[in-house]
């Protein structure tokens, strides 16, 4: 995969597993940083395996894609924990250490651990927009905004 194609596939995968649009994913400004984070922890070969597994199912219907993702990605002993770490990374902005059992079998992933790749990661966590709120300490919604019902975006 070319460098730019790799990034596009990572964005498409991220959009798929977070239920945010690719535009919203790009909008965080963190796509390259996160791809680098995954590469850094599990190595480019395993990242490629993840992206290729997703690439193979992109033309299928949404329902089929979900079923296939369960079988071949989230249900894969090797790729599953990595995919879950990517979902958590997008939602929370923290890379959560891979399970010890994964490390024993597929490691060592030397850079693994629980960490925030960049202070922006916290601020751009998708969790906050999903619930119509904002990350505590950033992107405040304005004086008195809290008295009204939340604007939870449709998706």
């Amino acid at each position: 995969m070319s460098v730019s194609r790799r990034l596009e596939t990572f964005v498409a995968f991220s959009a798929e597993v977070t239920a945010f649009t690719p535009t919203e994913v790009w909008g965080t400004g963190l796509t390259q940083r996160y791809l680098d984070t995954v590469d850094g922890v599990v190595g480019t070969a395993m990242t490629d395996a993840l992206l290729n597994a997703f690439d193979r199912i992109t033309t299928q219907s949404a329902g089929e894609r979900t079923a296939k993702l369960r079988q071949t990605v989230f249900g894969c002993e090797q790729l599953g924990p990595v995919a879950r770490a990517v979902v958590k990374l997008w939602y929370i902005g923290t890379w959560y250490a891979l399970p010890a059992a994964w490390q024993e079998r597929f490691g060592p992933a030397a850079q693994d651990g629980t960490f925030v790749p960049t202070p922006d990661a916290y601020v751009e966590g998708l969790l906050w927009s999903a619930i119509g709120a904002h990350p505590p300490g950033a992107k405040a919604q304005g004086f008195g905004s809290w008295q009204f019902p939340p604007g939870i975006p449709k998706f």
Partner: protein
Amino acid sequence: MSILDRRAIMVDPGVLKNSGHYDAIIVGSGVAGAIIANELAQAGKRVLIVEAATETDRSFKGYSSYLQHFYGQADKDNQSPFPVNRNADMPRSGQLRKLDPLEINSTSYIVQSGPYVTDTVYTRAFGGTTIHWEAKTPRMLPQDFQMQTLFGQGKDWPIRYHDLEVDYELAEREIGVSANVEDQQYLDITFRSSYVYPMHGLPLSYLDQRVAAQIDGSEVELYGERYPLRVRPFPQGRNAIPNQKYDGGKGYQPVGAVASHQIDVGGRCQGNTNCVPICPVQAKYHAGKTLAKAFDTGRVDLLSQAVASRVVIDSASGRVTGIETKLYHDPASPDHHTIMITGTLYVLAGNAIETPRLMLASGLRSSSGLMGCNLMDHAYLLNWALMPQICGTMRGTTCTGGIVELRGGAFRRHQATFSVDIHNDGWGWATGSPASDVVELVDAGNKFGADLRQAIIDRVSRQLLLAFMIEVLPSESNRVSVNPSYTDLLGNMRPVVSFTVPDYTLRGAAYARQFAKTVFARLGAEDHTKYDPSDYGFVTYEGEPFAIRGGNHLAGTHVMGTDKATSVVDTNQRCWDHDNLYLVGAGSMPTIGTANVTLTLAAMAFRSARNMIMQLGRLHAPVQT
């Protein structure tokens, strides 16, 4: 107010000896120390503030660096914005664990000698713990000052509510409190006629309103008396819309961000939901705002990275002759040198742990023997549930409303009172939400994509956390002490805390749990509360389990009273034993009721400052400007 370059002098310790005479040496730049520094300086007195921490956040850049540090931490514990400084260390809840019987844990800064482990914290930073506080500012109830007389429990104060009433108003001005008098007139709280708070109250959150819709107008019965329930807004030390009627129609000018350059933010709270541990825009009061005014007078000097280590006394007169202080050059290294600092009056404002710690480390136990005793802190009991509808949790200030009708009542003969906070930030304090929810939904729930996104909304936006702040009465065995076996890097003895949650409080906790269940039933909310036996705050009472959290409202350790035999300080917070030494802060409070302590300690600081000015007048101390 324009906040331009301050003449806050980072005093060169080398020239300190020759820098002239100080009317007062104040140890600690927290709210208590800051108010006294400012009051004395406004009256023309010369002041030196001795502060253990670095002065990082005096600049806006320094303040912002705390924020970046906070964003970048994976574990956002409530001290996460404040980098480690072993020379002026502070407690961090992440370092705690449950104790075995008789075990002592000295791995955390506060040595926990048990049996109960307290996760209470304070912040040793320029401006003290208010950089970190939540800024709820209720007054104490008049009945709180007479616990012994009215209920046969705890102690009476040597002063009453009305003695502090005007000082409460000064404290509300200094902190910049937002509230409406009509919401705060409950139980026996009174206000002087025509008084209004500096700013209008902050609106209740949507979550508060959903709770109010179901419980307002309902009642509970306790020991045969009925108590009506209502969700009320809390008074808060954060900027809202100024009240034009304030100060006889003069209005009030909110104080925003303080820095060495004019920065136009913080004039009004933006709903950052991050009041604890740090408000990004400084809409929330912190003592730096008072210090800025004090420095503006040109009469206040600051010596930072200076840890007061020993109070030196003339044994004949009992007067303080100086404070031995260790100056370190770099927070990363224990290298330091020691100097003696002298002035006319001495004021220890290190907070209710650090002040008695310093006194005890100096061998000064008070003739009453009560130095460090009677440690109090509110006991928090958390109860959490899911509301039947989406409430938009995670928005607003940490807390806008709660249930306060059980702060007082005849039941105080039998059990502790409480004040209930409705948390706008969900279950975070109890479970680590919302990050813990996402982790659980992804890892155990096997959710991703649209399923996950919907599940997050259902799980997080319906969260309700009721935090019960329960009264703790003074008990001599709950205390701070020192022990030469436990020292910090500079060789100063660390505080050792022994604490048991009194039965009176646990009876209040047992009722609090029952009360929470009643409220959840009235709301149709799904109760998710559970207390883990491995939790460091785990206790049982009559077979029922609870996990108690520390309240960060430390008090009682240099108790105020009417005589030398039964108290450490007089009603002006001056030591009975040392007539030029004041111990100021919540340590002087005989009881704490269900008021977060800071407004009251700030009011007492105004009272003490007046007395110091009178005392300095009597001593004919030279006034230099």
